[in-house]
């Protein structure tokens, strides 16, 4: 191979590489805009979050990749020779390359002629192939993409809501983490593990949530488990407070009592002392529980839809969104406006023990009233395990009950359904059965189990 010829071909190769880069960029731009267009079309049927991002990323990625791929591809001698010949060298270069091994006089002359022609060649004349077609296609795709981006698309609003939900869930899970960390300090190792497991599972489920319904279901499940955990914790604390435990048990019990909710219980003096320590403990027992309730409020569909991009309102439990229990203790529906544990936290749980609405205005929280006033009162049930999810919206539309007579009539889809009103008697029975069963299942001492039974017996007597 004649080195002179190869040397003369170098500028041509550089030019070809540059042209390939431009050509690649043009085709990449077309492909990118095409992909963006496809995504926009898909977004007409399926919510796609970050529409501007999904429009920009394929364009940038395809353009860069295509340009870089083209530019980095090695330029063959033959390709460079053809490019040079295309600029009026009349096949001198390609012939010289092919005849490189020939020693005949005419071939030597031909090589010399080709080298001279290459040296005289203005490489600027080597133009990239026509980019008219890809650029016109890109223009067409670009216009369509822009139109689809600016055109109001209901799926985009859906996607935005989903994004808002994700942000809320992220913030909420962070708060749950912090609350769990706080709680862990006060829990026994096995309870700590349980709490950790619970929060991990919850996080995983929230991460997998496709919409607020999924998130609410996950939160409800977690809340139920939290309630069970809290009841055990409270049981421990009460048992400790009862003085039935050993020396060490008593110590442990007093520790647990801090996390226990003494509100409306039959706790003795020790437990009462503990109950006075913190309103937090009284209302939700564990901070995690409060965080869960706050997140639940935030996940409310209405709040998700209206959530600003950096929404914290829901997690702060800011009032105004939902319908909480009113001053008369009438049942509210949906997410409440409570300070911390809004959304009627504790709904569907034992109203005496859980007392989710402990911080509700006027001290009229569920479960805080004397049991004798509970008769003929109604609990609003929100238990996903017993309700149809598609009737959840009825909860917010539920007319508030104005007087007790009217409460005799069940509204909504029926007992156990969202927004359905159930006589307190029935609810009490259910609670009693549930808790008694739970006490049987859990690893409790006989005394502790007896304590649960006594608790409901006492309430029954009072009725």
């Amino acid at each position, binding site marked *: 191979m004649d080195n002179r010829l190869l040397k003369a071909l170098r500028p041509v190769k550089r030019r070809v590489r540059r042209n390939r880069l431009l050509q690649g960029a043009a085709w990449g731009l077309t492909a990118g805009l095409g992909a963006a267009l496809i995504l926009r079309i898909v977004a007409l049927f399926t919510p796609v979050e970050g529409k501007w991002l999904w429009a920009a990323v394929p364009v940038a990625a395809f353009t860069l990749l295509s340009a870089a791929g083209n530019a980095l591809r090695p330029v063959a001698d033959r390709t460079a020779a053809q490019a040079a010949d295309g600029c*009026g060298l*009349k096949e*001198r270069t*390609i*012939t010289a390359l*092919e005849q490189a091994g020939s020693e005949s*006089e005419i071939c030597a002359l031909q090589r010399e*002629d080709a080298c001279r022609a290459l040296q*005289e060649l203005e490489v600027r004349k080597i133009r990239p192939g026509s980019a008219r077609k890809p650029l016109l296609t890109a223009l067409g795709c670009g216009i369509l993409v822009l139109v689809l981006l600016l055109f109001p698309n209901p799926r985009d609003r859906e996607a935005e809501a989903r994004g808002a939900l994700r942000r809320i869930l992220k913030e909420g899970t962070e708060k749950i983490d912090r609350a769990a960390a706080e709680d862990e300090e006060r829990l026994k190792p096995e309870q700590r593990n349980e709490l950790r497991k619970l929060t991990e599972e919850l996080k995983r489920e929230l991460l997998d949530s496709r919409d607020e319904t999924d998130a609410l279901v996950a939160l409800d499940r977690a809340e139920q488990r939290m309630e069970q955990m809290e009841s055990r914790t409270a049981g421990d604390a009460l048992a400790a407070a009862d003085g039935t435990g050993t020396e060490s048990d008593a110590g442990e019990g007093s520790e647990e009592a801090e996390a226990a909710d003494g509100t409306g219980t039959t706790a003795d003096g020790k437990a009462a002392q503990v109950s006075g320590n913190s309103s937090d403990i009284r209302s939700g027992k564990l901070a995690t529980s409060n965080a869960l309730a706050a997140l639940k409020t935030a996940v409310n569909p209405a709040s998700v839809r209206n959530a600003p991009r950096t929404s914290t309102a829901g997690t702060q439990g800011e009032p105004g969104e939902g319908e909480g229990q009113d001053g008369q203790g009438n049942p509210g529906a949906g997410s409440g406006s409570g300070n911390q544990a809004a959304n009627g936290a504790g709904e569907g749980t034992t109203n005496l023990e859980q007392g989710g609405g402990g911080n509700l205005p006027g001290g009229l929280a569920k479960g805080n009233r004397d049991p004798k006033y509970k008769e003929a009162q109604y609990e609003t049930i929100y238990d996903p395990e017993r309700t149809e999810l598609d009737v959840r919206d009825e909860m917010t539309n539920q007319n508030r009950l104005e007087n007790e007579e009217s409460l005799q009539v069940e509204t909504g889809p029926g007992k156990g359904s969202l927004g359905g009103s159930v006589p307190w008697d029935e609810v009490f029975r259910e609670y009693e059965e549930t808790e008694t069963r739970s006490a049987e299942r859990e690893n409790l001492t006989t005394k502790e189990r007896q304590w649960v039974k006594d608790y409901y017996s006492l309430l029954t007597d009072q009725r």
Partner: protein
Amino acid sequence: MSEMNNGVKGSGAERFAEQYEKIRSEIGKEMIGQQDVVEHLLMAVIAGGNVLLEGVPGLGKTHLVRVLGKVLNLPFSRIQFTPDLMPADITGTNILVRTEEGNAFRFQEGPLFSSIVLADEINRATPKTQAALLEAMQEHAVTVAGETRKLPEPYFVLATQNPVEQEGTYPLPEAQLDRFLFKVLVPFPTLEELGAIVDLTVKDGGQEAQQVIGAEELLAMRAAARSVPVASAVQEYALRLVLATHPESADAPEVTKKYIRFGASPRAAQALLSVSRVRALAKGRYNVAFDDIRFAAPACLRHRLAMNFEAVSSGKEMEGLLQEIISAVTEK
């Protein structure tokens, strides 16, 4: 890009271009216009091929051949083809001669025994006489009475035919047509050229063409042309062009399939490349370009293709079809 004039001093190739230009300009002294015809004729002569000149009478076809002979300093003979012309009249024949030893047969060479043979109005002769030219044109030899005689080198036949007067003519058979390297159409001169021709005939002291080269130099030019390298892509282009004239070929363009009865022979490909080589050197290049092939293609192919009935009935002309075929074949 304009053709570059290379600076290879003293090379045969550079002399080629110089000599070519000299011959052309020398012919131009006596031939007004017809530059394209002169160029084709000259290239065919250097390539060693026969040329069929087609044009109406009075366009200077015979004069052109005569001038060519003068410039190349080659023996020239002219045969006026008529229906009663016999093969022996052109090839020569054994005649009885009286010698000192007695009577003996001696071969009397016909007009074919000349370097440049002008076969004027070749289509007026009978096929038998036309066929007598075949061996001379292809093998540069003549066989008479079982004895083959070589014709002088360089040797080429320049035939003319009149496209208008078809009565009493015998169209050349395909086999004979194929032996012509080129079929050159001699166009009617333009107004300016016609004026110059008229002036030349009435004025005295017009320039006369002079000898530029001899037979040796012509053969050297032919040898130089044959050594010109051809890039594989260019050669493939020439071959694809020939294949594109065959209606049965898979790659044939639509125009071929529709209007061509049969395509060019392999001789057409040889002719394309040999003439392209000459043109490359004449233009100061040492390699064949796609342009050279395109230049040679119409003259190489037009007499080797036959239009079908559809083409004739729809008034198609070979020139138009050829241009379509050439433009349909890409360089790749």
